């Protein structure tokens, strides 16, 4: 992907939208202060739109920021959106959190985003001060460091099995659509990795995966599905979930959060990208995604008109677990 060309095109579209007054703000990414960490950015003027960028480090799901801005401030948004972000926009429209007409979607096919942690892990103990993109390679620079990495080897896990690189809904593309919607990876080979284990091993794997959680809730707060005014974990009357670092409390939070995302999660990976301690939330959410797909034939965020699977039923839904 020619990131520089897409960046220029995004800026061009954003400047036009802003100067013609078609939108009040354009939500996109701008360069971060840390290598491989672009950040969400709200451009309100054509001048500010000059800061927008498109790189393989755009890991925040921008749909999330539309529901977090206080309502009423912005009438119409421009939003830079790759496949997964538009799937979440579709979900938010289905759930009456957004209106299609409030959005001007600047579409980009996702190239698959880089997992900064994977890059850092390749150079343990080294300081990375700069990461450049050259074609399909990353150039990693730092004191005593000048290395190249094939970008394909360090993408986020969820990006390899992406089924929807192109935007589902779009008003204007910033480049040609990708030939294939799919990134090619087989989700069934990756999803629900603990299924092959016995119960004791599963519990151990579950424990190991979540034991480092510091309950900062970055996973929840980075997630466009988590817009409840009062999250169950914050409820005090009654208090559903303890506030301590006891594993039962930590696990309850993660289990229920994952469960609340059932039939809604688009596997965008924002939770894992946000986590400060590298927890793999997808080990839970991918299991639910797989079940929903296999039991109810549903993949979230692909059609505005579709009915979300948890708000509907069919007489022949599986029920062999019920005595």
């Amino acid at each position, binding site marked *: 992907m020619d990131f520089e060309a897409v960046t220029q095109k995004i800026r061009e579209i954003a400047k036009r939208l802003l100067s013609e007054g078609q939108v009040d703000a354009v939500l996109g990414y701008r360069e*971060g*202060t*840390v290598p491989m*960490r*672009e*950040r*969400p*950015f*709200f451009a309100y003027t054509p001048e500010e739109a000059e800061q927008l960028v498109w790189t393989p480090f755009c890991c*925040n799901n921008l749909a*999330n*920021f539309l529901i*977090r*801005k*206080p309502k009423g401030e912005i009438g119409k948004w421009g939003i830079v959106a790759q496949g997964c972000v538009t799937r979440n926009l579709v979900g938010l429209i289905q759930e009456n959190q957004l209106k299609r007409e409030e959005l001007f979607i600047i579409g980009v096919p996702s190239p698959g985003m880089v997992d900064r*942690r994977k890059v*850092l*892990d390749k150079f*343990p*103990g080294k*300081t990375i*001060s700069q990461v450049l993109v050259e074609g399909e390679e990353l150039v990693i620079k730092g*004191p005593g460091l000048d290395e190249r990495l094939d970008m394909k080897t360090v993408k986020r896990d969820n990006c390899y099995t992406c089924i929807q690189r192109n935007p589902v809904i779009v008003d204007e593309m910033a480049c040609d659509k990708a030939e294939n919607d799919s990134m090619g990876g087989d989700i069934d080979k990756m999803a629900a990795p603990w299924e092959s284990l016995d119960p004791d091993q599963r519990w151990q794997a579950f424990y190991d995966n979540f034991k480092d959680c*510091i*309950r*900062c*809730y*970055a996973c*929840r*707060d*980075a997630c466009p599905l988590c817009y409840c005014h*009062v999250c169950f974990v*914050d409820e005090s009357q009654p208090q559903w979930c*303890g*506030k*301590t*670092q*006891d594993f039962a409390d930590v696990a309850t939070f993660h289990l229920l959060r994952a469960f609340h995302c059932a039939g809604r999660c688009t596997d965008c990976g924002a939770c894992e*990208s*946000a*986590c*400060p*301690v*590298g927890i793999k939330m997808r080990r839970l959410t991918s299991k639910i995604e797989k079940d929903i797909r296999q039991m109810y034939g549903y993949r979230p965020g692909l059609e505005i008109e579709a009915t979300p699977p948890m708000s509907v039923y069919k007489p022949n839904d599986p029920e062999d677990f019920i005595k």
Partner: protein
Amino acid sequence: MADKILAKDKLPEFLAQLEKEHRVYAPQLQGDDYRWAPLEQAGDVVWDFSNTRLSPKEFFFPQTECMMRFVNDPADPEGMIMKPEEPLDEKRVLMNIRPCDAKAFGVLDLIFCQDDYTDDPYWRDKREKTLLVALACNDPCPQCFCTSVGCGPHSEAGSDLLLVDLGDKLLVKVTSERGAAFAEGLEEAGEDDQKKAAELKKAAEDKLAQNLTVGTDKIAQKEVLELFDDPMWDRVWESCLNCGTCTFCCPTCHCFDIQDETQGKEGRRVRNWDWCMHWLFTRHGSGHNPRGTSKERVRQRFMHKFKYIPLKRGGEIGCVGCGRCVVLCPVNIDVREVVNQMNA
């Protein structure tokens, strides 16, 4: 006391001396990050790490800490009456704590132990039982800005001993009275050693000068309301997720919540880390919320660290420039940029 020298191959003896009374903890590589863990043998000591992912404040201010317990039974003669939890049952050494983290505990001492009444026994107990052996930074990371906030790569504040890595040996600076006892047996540092340590310090400071630095001089001069009402806050908060990452990784953030828990006849009062970015943090029972918007909460965090704490604690800044929040913030709200805007 004059600076001492500890050859790295004499480390086992040095540690043995500490281990007579203390349990020694040190940063070690676990999985993909450096973390604090009990030190099993001298060979496990690492000298070339940058810093641990999270601050070691957990040693003094655990994320979940039982403060007191009670018998949850009104019929029991002692029922429903709170009894304080036992104090820490070990003495500890935090070996190779970075100077920024050591300094942070000095700042937190001013907050947890303010006067005769506001004197947190849980904090004080663990502080008094813990020796801090700091390791100077010779190779600071690109996100550090310690020199901008009254700290530095070889800062001596807060520690008991400060080690400077000279290659095959360590220069040992005695930085507190308590530390002196543990340096007594060591040989004195020569002029060459001192010169080399000074060069390393200068080199580290020069390297830090290449990083994005911050100024705080104008913040100190401005009135609270002038900073508070600055239009800059209208933009700073925009992408904030209101998560707890910055506060939980921060060595000086110290807000907490207190909660009671019961199970049958067991009852306890625990405190858990809390964070000012969360909208429920300040919400009154009536529903009124003095910091009800994200903008107000984001402003609070920066104002607290860079204006309120200095104002109340003799100019001490509530940030030591460790750079953790810069690296870990999921939306890259960079404290250095924010402070420079405040200081404009």
